[in-house]
């Protein structure tokens, strides 16, 4: 919600919005009052309204003054919010793909250190620069509570800054029509306390390590085999295994994500199984084929395996 900002790049816009709402409300009230007098007012009132002076004052002078004021205010806010990156800032590269988000965390020299998908984790209280790119068509990054939107355009790189002042999950969605299931291209910005963020990042940098209780270990092992045998690794990477495909999201820590299918399903074993079996039914047109050929047991096993990749 635009009017419920959660950071310094959304807050000033909320202020602008309220200033504009008040301006619009006052002007609308004035116009309706003049119209009311024109239609229903007593004759002497109508004569005053019905003169060319009203057009000069109401139509020309008044808007010029109001608009000039607004413009100065708007432009100064624009300047404050512009996002040319400065050296030393934390950077995340977000690439729009049909119809999900590839998220890469960069080190100081701009090299990619780890990949994730559809969730952007940021430390609370600190600005993060997003490098926005596209792998195919134009997308637009938008997390309304954290700021405005910025387009992701093939052949170009745009920047924007994000900052959340409190921990929490902030919903977002692709805002530029990108064909097919554009409506189901969601994302979540997860703001964490700095120490939790550091821990998460460290854990995320490690290779895949299924987290399993002794009684589920065989199921998970079977899931890993089904994953390999079904060719999932052609599109997905699980670091530390043979799966090294690049077309789809990195699944090294998929079990630790909040959502599935680019922000459209909660992430658990049930939805994982459902997504694998019928991703085309859930999100028609997306690039992941459905796997109805997998037996129920295999499906449960794969889901358990993926869920264990915390």
């Amino acid at each position, binding site marked *: 919600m635009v009017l419920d900002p959660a950071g310094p790049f959304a807050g000033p816009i909320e202020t602008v919005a309220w200033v504009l709402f008040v301006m619009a409300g006052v002007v609308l009230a004035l116009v309706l009052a003049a119209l009311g007098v024109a239609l229903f007012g007593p004759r002497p009132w109508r004569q005053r309204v019905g003169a060319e002076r009203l057009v*000069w004052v109401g139509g020309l002078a008044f808007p010029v003054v109001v608009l000039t004021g607004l413009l100065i205010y708007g432009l100064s806010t624009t300047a404050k919010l512009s996002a040319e990156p400065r050296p030393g800032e934390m950077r995340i590269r977000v690439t729009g793909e049909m119809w999900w988000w590839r998220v890469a965390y960069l080190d100081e020299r701009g090299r990619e250190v780890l990949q994730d998908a559809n969730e952007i984790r940021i430390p609370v209280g600190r600005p993060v620069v997003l490098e926005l790119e596209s792998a195919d068509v134009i997308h637009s990054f938008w997390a309304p509570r954290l700021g405005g939107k910025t387009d992701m355009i093939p052949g170009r790189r745009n920047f924007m800054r994000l900052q959340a002042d409190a921990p929490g999950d902030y919903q977002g969605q692709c805002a530029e029509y990108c064909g097919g299931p554009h409506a189901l291209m969601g994302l979540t910005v997860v703001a964490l306390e700095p120490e939790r963020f550091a821990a998460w990042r460290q854990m995320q940098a490690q290779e895949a390590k299924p987290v399993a209780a002794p009684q589920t270990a065989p199921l998970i092992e079977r899931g890993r085999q089904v994953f390999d045998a079904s060719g999932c690794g052609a599109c997905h990477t699980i670091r530390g295994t043979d799966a090294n495909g690049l077309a789809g999201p990195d699944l090294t820590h998929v079990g630790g994500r909040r959502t599935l299918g680019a922000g459209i399903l909660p992430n658990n074993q049930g939805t994982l199984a459902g997504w694998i079996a019928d991703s085309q039914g859930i999100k028609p047109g997306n690039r992941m084929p459905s796997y109805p050929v997998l037996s129920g047991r295999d499906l449960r096993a794969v889901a358990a395996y993926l869920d264990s990749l915390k």
Partner: protein
Amino acid sequence: MNGDPGLDPEIYERFPTKGRRPRDELKTLEAVWCGPTKPWEWITAINNNFVGVYYVGAAMLFFVLAGVLALLMRTQLALPMTGFLAQETYNQIFTMHGTVMMFLFAVPAVEALGVLLLPQMLGARDLPFPRLSAYAFWAYLVGGLSFFCSLFFGLAPNGGWFMYPPLTGTTYSPGINADFWLLGIGFIEISAIAGAIEIIVGVLKTRAPGMTLDKLPIFAWAMLIFACMIVIAFPSVILSTLLLELERALGWPFFDAAKGGDPLLWQHLFWFFGHPEVYIIFLPAAGAMSTIIPAVAQTRLVGHRLVVMAMLATGFISFGVWAHHMFTTGMPRLSINYFSAASAAVSVPAGVQVFAWIATLAAGKMRFNTPGLFAVGGLVIFVMGGLTGVMVAMVPFDWQAHDSYFIVAHLHYVLIGGMVFPLFAAIYYWLPMSSRRPLSERWGKWIFWLMFIGHNVTFMPMHLSGLMGMPRRVYTYLPDRGWELPNLISTFGSFLFGLAVMLWIIDMIRNFRPFGDKEAGNLFNGPGLEWLPAGFYSLRSIPVITSLYPVWEQKGLGRDVAAGRYLLPGAPRGERETIVTSPITAQPQYLLRMPRPSSWHVWGAVFTAGFFLILTVQAYVAAVVSGILAVYCLWEWAWRLDRPHRAATADVGGGVRLPTSVSGPMSHGWWAMVITLTVSGMVAVMAGFSYVFLWSRRPDLWRAPPDAASLLITLGLLAACALGAFGSVRSLKGARPSLAAALMLTASLAAAAAFAVEAGAWWSSGLRPDANSQGATVFALLAWQGVFAGIGLLMGLFALMRRLFGLVTPDRPATFELIGLFLGYTAAQGAASLLLVRLLPGGGA
């Protein structure tokens, strides 16, 4: 004051004339202008009383069709994650809703209103090129209906009405759906431009004597500015559709970043058209408001001059705001600030008009009839849309609102308040001019309130859903975002709106009776000439105008006009004719002979539409056949235009004699050709912009141009073309028709040769159109020049044929003058584009 050449205004003293008119004069006039008698004559009719009504009717048909699509969308969005429409169907439907509303409803509807109303308002018998408006109409109807039908085969475009590449390129849209959009919009653009030429020449050249610019009805002002804006803006969308189709069909990379193209080039070209488009739609509707409000308040428009200035200002400023659709694309901050300021500024002239309307309502006394209600309701809605418009002109707010449902709300407030409500006001106000019975006032009030409430219930909640984070163009949404309630309310409201439109359709069926002998007439006591008693010939005689509100202020005007006491009280030569006047002071200049009904323009329109549509389904042979047939029909049409006159002058009443034929800048044909060439020039300018834009993105890709020798040869040939064309017209005026025809043919051959030399030079330099952005833009400019060289050749041939048939005489040089103008322009365009692509620095690699 006497700024224009024409008859001395002192002759106006002779009117109204005294005495009775000859008895059979009116009979001849009626016979010459009679309506259809046989069934097929309804199709070949060209009189604006028929074509105008067809035109408005077709536009309203598309309004209803696109409205049905809107109801389907609202049904799908009533609840989250419903399966009423499949994703692909929804994507096609929202694309078609926007496209049909903008291209097949809004622009044609206001253009149609102009075709229907302008001749009557201006005191002309018809618009100056009635066959051209009929052609525009038929191309639009045939093409528009076939385009719409693509929905039923699942082949409708699905890339959104602004069709951003690369989504609409072949990689991501391999089907022919996108081609339907690109080619389907092609003939609609042609038809809009044809209409615009008609309207500009009509308003400037066929006004009643004495109707100087300060007495020009405000609606005609609006239509004039509207048509000029089409001439400037539409070339940009013509070019962008051509470029994208070239990229799709032949792989020329204008928008493909991998080969030096840039997706943002499309956005610049599209919005350079797309934003003025909004004002193109709004201005005629505002002109209608400025006409209807004085009539419902029964007083003059307060601040008439200010309103005219405001409309002119809107026209100018609207060309400087296009990039406010691109605030989120990462533009440099300086450009962002400029476009933000311009976007705020464009609301000032709108404010002037709104306050002029309010002042007018106060100065008179509002009568609460249906046109009045629609006008006031439209004003209120438009003001709300204007205020949200100011909000989104503020960049930080736009970063949030852009591409969200807030924008959907904003644009519908602006367009429905600024165009749909005024259009309904116009329909209720002017329908008694064309129909035996008016529409029901009681029903009209119900329809108004349903529509007004329905509109607000539909679109008010969308402001909220947008601010809650709902992006536009989504076929569904997730249940947990809090968007359910505003969406459900919106859906409910949309059906109220739909109900209002349905009631209006029923009332139209009950009461609309056009094409009769007798009309309901001036029920609202309007002040304009269109309210004088009239037949298919328009006014019995063309009055001398001394007032901005002639019916109110020129006493006895209706009686004298109907008695034939003014100019052109009959048809002196037994043909369809009207008086052509000078553009500023409206002094009579000559008697224009108008065409009769014909089938060539109808077939021409069918084959033009056919060419584009068949091209879409890639049946190239059939498309080429259709294209050749279209050219043949246009040839036949043109062949019959320049007929000999029996006498050099004719009596138009009161002893005034007017010439029957003129040429040069005084003639209507010269104006039309100059405007057509302006359109072509704008296409060339936008193509030049594309070239420089892509060069500035990737100068490293640019290679050196071919050697200078070919440049000199091409320039020499182009100079020969210009000189030949000029010499041809001179020798015709010097009574040497054979030399004139020979020179004209030579000039056209020189233009073709220049094109061949230049294209050959680039080709042999090794540059290929599909290699990179330089190749694509250079060959695009060449192709555009090639089209002109080709048309020039046809014209040279036409000149030769005219001579062989003995139709070229020194007293009628118009045909040669127009061909000469065209060839001269072709030479200039060729030289300019040539120098551009040769002079920008290339790497030499």
